[in-house]
């Protein structure tokens, strides 16, 4: 089992955002977590992505408690490398070219040579070869989502966590992106977890969880 959440609760001051969540995700799963805005989807994804901590309950990431991982900064950095995060909150760096933005995880991990072939494959797949030298300000929102997806996948992560990946996308771009994700899941057996309220997406996923009033069904 890749991820296991038991009795997890997250509370901000007096407001319970996630209430006794139970969730198990296995290798190769394509999971969507659906729910209206403010239902706690992003909070749950932040916990699964090892960005934030729960108030109570347990979360095991690849067999290790997230509290143990979060307590050791180096361990945390290494564990995060196994997750590709695609989120509206994860910015493209405006002063870097699209190519450098995608390759950022390689720069950070000092493994640019090792990811060169993956990078080329991804930009071909995402059809953004001609955008490599552009700055983020010059690309459309659909292209931006594809760039974020490439960056999330460039280190060949075991898990892809995407928060509202089709927000701000038109019908055609949204469907295109879903096709990409489905392809990656089938071809590379990447575990994908998506938080969305876009019906076009969750109908394509293998497992659907509903999040409402902090409860996961």
């Amino acid at each position, binding site marked *: 089992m890749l991820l296991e959440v038991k009795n997890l609760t997250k509370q901000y001051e007096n407001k319970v955002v996630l209430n006794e969540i139970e969730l198990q995700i296995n290798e190769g799963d394509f999971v969507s977590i659906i729910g209206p805005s403010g239902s706690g989807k992003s909070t749950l994804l932040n916990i699964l992505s090892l960005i934030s901590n729960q108030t109570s309950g347990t979360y095991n990431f690849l067999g290790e408690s997230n509290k143990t991982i979060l307590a050791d900064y180096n361990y945390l950095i290494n564990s995060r490398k196994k997750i590709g995060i695609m989120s509206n*909150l994860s910015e493209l760096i405006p002063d870097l070219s699209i190519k450098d933005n995608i390759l950022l995880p390689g720069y950070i991990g000092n493994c640019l040579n090792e990811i060169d072939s993956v990078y080329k494959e991804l930009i071909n797949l995402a059809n953004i070869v001609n955008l490599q030298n552009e700055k983020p300000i010059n690309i459309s929102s659909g292209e931006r989502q594809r760039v974020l997806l490439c960056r999330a996948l460039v280190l060949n992560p075991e898990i892809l966590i995407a928060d509202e990946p089709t927000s701000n996308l038109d019908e055609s771009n949204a469907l295109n992106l879903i096709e990409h994700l489905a392809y990656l899941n089938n071809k590379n057996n990447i575990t994908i977890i998506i938080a969305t309220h876009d019906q076009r997406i969750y109908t394509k996923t293998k497992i659907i969880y509903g999040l409402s009033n902090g409860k996961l069904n």
Partner: protein
Amino acid sequence: MRYGSLLILNYFKSIFDSKANSIPAVISIIAIAISIFSLILVLSVMKGFDVKVKQKIIASFPHIIIKTNKEYDFSRFNEIKSFNKTFESYLGIILNKKFDIVQIKGVKDFNSIKKVSSKLDLNKFNESKDHLPVVVGRNFSHKYNKTIGDKFELLIPDFTHRKPKIKTIKGYIVGVSDISDVNTNRLYTTNKYAKDFIGHNTSFIEIVLTDPFRSKIVSNLIIKEFKELKFKVIDWQSVNFSLFNLMKLERISLAIFLSFLIVISATTIYSNMISLITQKKNEIGTLILLGSKKNSLIMVFTQIGFFVGLIGVIIGTFFATIVILLITKTNIINNLSIDLSFYGIDGFPIVFSATYYFYIILFSILIIIISSLLPSYFLLKKDVESLIRRDY
């Protein structure tokens, strides 16, 4: 390109790409440049004063004085360039119906006085036994409008009686010297005439050294050789100890006060870095999410602030050096008709001191590093969730 260099280069460029960041950055650079420029220039002038005053003292006064009536031979000391027996006393003088105090100094003979323009026939003069022959400096001659052949009255205090008396003798100018005396009111006569007319029985040996800055060492060697001279030997550095200490204290005080300018300028870098990091908060959060270590990001932003400050340091140092070179290598001060005769030193007092450069630049760089490091350190201590959260 490495990750750190990639970020530094891009963030550094982004500072100067936007007006919101470039104007404060330019203000920081100018403030630091002005601070460094002022500190280097003021300290170089202060050091110049120190050097010029010491040069003047070395040129005008003996380097070691020994109070003794006995004769000594110091020729065995290699470091002693010359030594002369002399005496010094103070007399009253009446010139142009005005009373003044003058110093009288004994020399071996009148020819030993520097550049005496012309002299009276001493043989003719010696027929008159009641006149003390003296040589005066150029400044004395101008001040009192007296020249060769002029006479005046000298009042000599006589402490040999129970009730001190004043003896009056006649003085007679036999020569005018080009010597640029620090003391304008100084008369020269020979030791022999001094003994005959003034009856002074306390004399000195004046020693000039090849290296005046070794005066303390040579003094100790003399005392070691002639034990009876202990407490009678004094060198120029000891005589002027308080003056040199005062000048040093003045330099240190100015250095401390002017250092505050650098500290104040560096606060602009501090606020610029806070502003830059706050603007880039979400990007920093993203970088951390992608695996970047906080310490490496702290290093990135510290180096960006450091480079902004370094530009100011380079500009300030460059212009200070140009000004120092202009003053020392050209006649710009003379051309500007700045009168420095008031200070009694020749030329504008400024020196190029590599030691001062080193300490000023080192201090500035330390302050700039601290002011760049602190904002990055405090802001990046936040957890990644608060860094990526958008502030609407």
